[in-house]
């Protein structure tokens, strides 16, 4: 017998089930010894006395030593108890033991509950089919073993068949129960793990918030004349904030607000302006919303290029089936009736784009009074 599969840890639940079976076997063996001694002491021999004595003592010796082996193995190498070789030997010994009462022609079916523990072992280590087959063998040999005994064969067969099957079913219930509990525990541990990580992140975020973001804000306040430094500080602040908010690491926009934030960031970076973005409500990013964001980005870029201001305001509002985006600056403005040649692109890429999306776009501007680009798709508010 080799310790196959011993590398893998034996599941605690299987060890428990095996222990139950082993306890049955120990009780069966003790019961066998008691009854066998009684037979020797009280019954008149029906066969040759010496043969009878050696058969009964041999059965005792075999049952006790095999039980001891089972107990030791259950503790040291539990996997072995489920191996085919062990189970076959176990079954041969059980059926042979069950036949002894008939061999010695005793009235007492003294082997009692011992052979059935072999079927119990199969119930604990193999499936229901194997259990039924083994139970049939044990029941058959026990039925053959009660020929001269007072016990009735029908009862012996019923018990030997039913008990292992019921046990196999019970073990199945326990196993499923254990499996569910283990899964719940694993899920709980995983959840706890996740929460720990989230807490660490929150702590880190709080720290960064209290120190780094403050410093970056201060830099923007204190050195406004140095545009390069301000721009750098602003970009760092933005990146940090995206990370703190658990934003998309790869910068993939999935919603109106994330796409708009990216567009605003790009304009800030490229044109060295501050975009004050307010978002009320959000919407999933589909082709139309994407087109709207592109048009808004164009409007922001235009404001940055032509308005001559360092701040642009953007307000986005989204309802169930509509989105409205307004881009505003307080800059130079222009007369919409006299659009300069170099700015015809605005109308095409902003107004034209929105109209193709089936939305409405309007541009309000006057020289010296800033520009407001109002874009809307879907039903009005």
């Amino acid at each position, binding site marked *: 017998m080799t310790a196959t599969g011993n590398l893998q840890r034996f599941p605690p639940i299987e060890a428990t089930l095996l222990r139950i079976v082993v306890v049955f076997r120990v009780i069966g063996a003790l019961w066998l010894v008691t009854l066998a001694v009684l037979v020797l002491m009280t019954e008149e021999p029906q066969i040759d006395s010496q043969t009878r004595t050696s058969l009964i003592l041999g059965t005792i010796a075999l049952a006790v030593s095999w039980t001891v082996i089972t107990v030791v193995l259950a503790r040291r190498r539990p996997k072995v108890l489920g191996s085919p070789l062990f189970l076959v030997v176990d079954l041969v010994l059980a059926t042979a033991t069950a036949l002894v009462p008939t061999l010695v022609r005793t009235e007492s079916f003294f082997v009692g509950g011992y052979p059935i523990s072999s079927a119990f072992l199969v119930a604990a280590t193999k499936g229901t089919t194997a259990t039924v087959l083994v139970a049939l063998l044990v029941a058959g040999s026990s039925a053959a073993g009660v020929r001269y005994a007072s016990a009735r064969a029908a009862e012996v067969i019923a018990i030997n068949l039913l008990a292992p099957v019921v046990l196999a079913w019970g073990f199945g219930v326990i196993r499923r129960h254990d499996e569910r509990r283990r899964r719940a525990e694993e899920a709980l541990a995983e959840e706890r793990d996740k929460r720990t990580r989230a807490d660490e992140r929150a702590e880190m975020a709080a720290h960064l918030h*209290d120190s780094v973001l*403050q410093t970056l804000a201060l830099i*923007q306040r204190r050195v406004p004349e140095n545009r390069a430094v301000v721009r750098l500080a602003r970009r760092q602040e933005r990146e940090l904030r995206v990370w703190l908010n658990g934003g998309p690491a790869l910068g993939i926009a999935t919603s109106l607000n994330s796409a708009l934030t990216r567009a605003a960031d790009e304009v800030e970076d490229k044109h060295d302006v501050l975009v*004050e973005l*307010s978002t009320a*409500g959000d919407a999933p990013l589909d082709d139309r919303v994407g087109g709207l964001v592109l048009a808004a980005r164009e409007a922001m870029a235009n404001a940055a290029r032509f308005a001559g201001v360092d701040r642009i305001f953007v*307000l986005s509002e989204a*309802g169930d089936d509509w989105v409205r985006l307004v881009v*505003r600056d307080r800059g130079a403005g222009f007369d919409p009736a006299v659009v300069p040649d170099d700015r015809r692109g605005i109308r095409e890429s902003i107004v034209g784009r929105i109209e193709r999306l089936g939305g409405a776009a309007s541009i309000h501007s006057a020289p010296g009074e800033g520009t407001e680009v109002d874009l809307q798709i879907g039903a009005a508010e």
Partner: protein
Amino acid sequence: MTDLVRVFVVDDHHLFRVGVRSELHEAVDLVGEASEVEAAIEMIRERTPDVVLLDVHMPGGGGRAVIEAVAATNPEVRFLALSVSDSPEDVIAVVRAGARGYVTKTVETEELIAAIRAVAEGEAVFSPRLAGFVLDAFAGSIPVDDDAEFNQLTPRERETMRLIALGHSYKETSQRLAISVKTVERHVSAVLRKLQLSNRHELARWAADHRIV
């Protein structure tokens, strides 16, 4: 110099306090500063400034704790919240606790001074960002079952918030809406009150949705 607004600064960031001091020392009367919640409460009660410049994020209960403690004993002290943060729920929480306004720390010096004076006058100061937060918080026209008026913005209040979010001053807003500046101020104060009183579950859910982590 008694007509200068008396200002107290609460901020746990040393550099920021230094910066504010050097920018504001001519325009306002700086009566003190604190870097901790407990010390701030004690000193504000003692010196009773007109306006407290308050960092939203403070260790030990945040700016909210300062407002709540001071309001209990000195309701005349007014608060202007500042933060570097985009996190709307913290800002809304401080406004709900009683701050009269909110500006970001990147605000320009003149704007900051104007905001301090406005708060000292009892006005509400809405930066474009706060107006955006308010629109977001009251977004959607879901009817509220108890239809308390403070659970929704009126169309006029909403329009006022939209214009402020787009960077219009109160004056520009009044011109756009063809109403007086006083009326704009009234709308803004009404919105501030609604923000403080509102019990609409959307506001609570909105705050939960916007948790930083």
